[in-house]
């Protein structure tokens, strides 16, 4: 019995120390890389998205859209409501190639990357915030702190990268490396926006945040984004991420 207890104790302690050693030994770059991997792990994703825009005085309005995503840098979004925006589509492709479809004009328009730092359709998410990209490609990380549940990274834009943010503080979950919270600081160094990613679920083996909230702490405006009808790894064709599909009626 005592031998059994001794064996169990040895295994538990080994695991604890091994985990601790692993946490200690991971560099900020490795943590961010793992986080990017987890965030972009699903080969493709299709979902319905509800965005609730909350004014500083509490007034709310709702946007609904469908979203298709493949890999880390192909995404298509189409508005379903409100009525005045129904049918508007946005296609984001690799190498900063973006297209906007406005049904009233019946034409797809090429959009240069200058829009990426602008708010998307009145929400608190910028085009850049909504695009699926790897933080490691654009930011240099440093590890500020490790808590019992999170790694806390500080990200600063890499040299040559144009960003509206002077730095980001990112809380990366210890258990699955999913980024649970990000603070965005403006060029003056003041806290500007806070992103909180809740309801992080594993769908078909891939971690997905079903609910997230972006708060503009300067204006008091915030946007809650909820995903439903999430489907991952369904083998979405590359063809969907094209102007051809952007204009299709659904």
């Amino acid at each position, binding site marked *: 019995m005592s031998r059994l207890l001794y064996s169990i104790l040895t295994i538990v302690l080994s695991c604890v120390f091994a985990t601790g050693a692993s946490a200690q030994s991971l560099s900020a770059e490795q943590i961010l890389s793992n986080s990017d991997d987890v965030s972009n792990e699903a080969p493709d994703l299709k979902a319905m998205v509800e965005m609730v825009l909350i004014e500083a005085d509490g007034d709310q309005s*709702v946007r609904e859209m469908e979203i298709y995503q493949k890999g880390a840098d192909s995404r298509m979004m189409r508005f379903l409501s*409100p009525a*005045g925006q129904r049918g508007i589509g946005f296609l984001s492709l690799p190498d900063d190639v973006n297209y906007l479809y406005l049904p009233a004009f*019946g034409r797809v328009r*090429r959009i240069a990357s*200058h829009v990426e730092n602008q708010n998307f359709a009145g929400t608190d998410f910028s085009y850049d915030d909504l695009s699926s990209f790897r933080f490691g490609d654009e930011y240099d990380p440093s590890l500020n702190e490790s808590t019992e549940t999170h790694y806390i990274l500080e990200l600063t834009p890499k040299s040559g990268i144009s960003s509206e943010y002077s730095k980001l503080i990112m809380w990366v979950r210890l258990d699955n490396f999913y980024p649970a919270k990000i603070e965005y600081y403006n060029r003056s160094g003041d806290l500007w926006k806070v992103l909180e990613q809740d309801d992080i679920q594993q769908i078909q083996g891939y971690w997905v945040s079903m609910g997230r909230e972006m708060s503009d702490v300067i204006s008091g405006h915030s946007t809650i984004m909820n995903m439903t009808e999430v489907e991952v790894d369904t083998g979405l064709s590359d063809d969907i991420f094209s102007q051809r599909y952007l204009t*299709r*009626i659904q």
Partner: protein
Amino acid sequence: MISSHSDTLHGFNRAMLRTRSTLQFPLRLFFVLPAICTSVLFAQENISIGGYVQTENHVAFDDQELTWSENRLNLKLSAGNFMDYGLFSEVQFRGFGYVQIDSVSMLQGLEDSGSYPGGVELREAYLDLYSFPFNSMDLRLGRQIINWGTADALNPTSNISPNNLEILLDFGEHLAVDAFQGTYYGSRANLTCVYVPTFTPARLPPPGYSSALLSAFSSGMSLPPGVSLEGFTQQVELPQRNLDESSQYAIKLSSFMQGFDLSLSYYYGRYDLPTPCAISMPDSVITLIYPKVQIIGGDFAGAIGSVGIWGEGAVFFPEEVLLDIPGLPAEEMLKDEPYVRFIAGCDYTFGNGVYVNTQVLHGFLHELGRKNLNDYLTFRVERDFLNSKLTLVPVSFAVSVSDRDDPAENYGLAYVPELTYRPVDNIEITFGGAVLHGEGDNLFKQLNDRDEFYVKARASF
């Protein structure tokens, strides 16, 4: 500015009747397809019905004349399954301006639509067949608006759908055409073919504005001594109602290379604005026709750094138009010599949200023939406030120079600021104005006394 206009339903029906007598069965089937669309639409479970109610009023500064007053109910129906097919139909009910009554008998027949101007318009009605007849092909059949080109609003390569100029400064609006459009999607390029069997002319603005557009064609007219065009009746002659005379067709090859969207296009058809071809002296009638034209175009869009850039150009090959004047040698109104119209522009959004857009243009959409082409510059500054509830366009102007040798006496300027407020979702109120000034012979000079302000309110549902 976004608005939507089209031919009247009556006009559409007339077009249907015209074509019925001359077209063969496959083409008849093609025209009937929009009607089939409508019936199929009601068999769908995923029908989407929406639209908007809009009121738009323009008032002249000088005499407070209501130059445009329109109330509109727009209805859109759509259905589709994204992978196989889509159906779209848009109808609008419009009522215009003042009651037109000049006799007691008209007061006694108030149901007379002529007294209360308005109408029903079928703006678009088409059927999309995706991956048909094979995987790399999409078809669009029926009444549709076809917009080509990469520039903002003023596109030399967009010649299939005629211009809708009923609100003159709302450039970029087009009318629908009854068309067959097929696009083949290749691995490196896409090929689009369009066939339009019937001719649809551009819609012109109210009389005071139309003269500004048409003056470009008539500026070179030589008249017999002592004869002036005042009091002449203008008579428009449409192409004959057969496929040889009324058809248009176009092809576009588009691709993506080195980060740029590129396309080449060819168009065969007619100008959508009329040109004088004959003057009849005894009855004081000027006859105008729609000359044939072939157009080869090209465009690109992309970015240099984070600045968006685009360009578009077209070579026009018009047919010759001679003006017959009794007792005088024929006057050449439109030479059969090629000429080029082009536009180039760029845009950028600054970190503070200020959006800037500028374009340079050689040849406006109403300028036909090499001798009539002028140069223009447009510049627009725009910024959203209150999370896009408020959009302010404090600077939006166009400058034109009609004679580079003497620009001080040959220039035009249009200043069109605008403010749009969206108090709640689906409600949009726009206030704007237009200040027009010019010297010499140019579009804005012709509109000198047409300064105006306008209010437009739209509720979408």
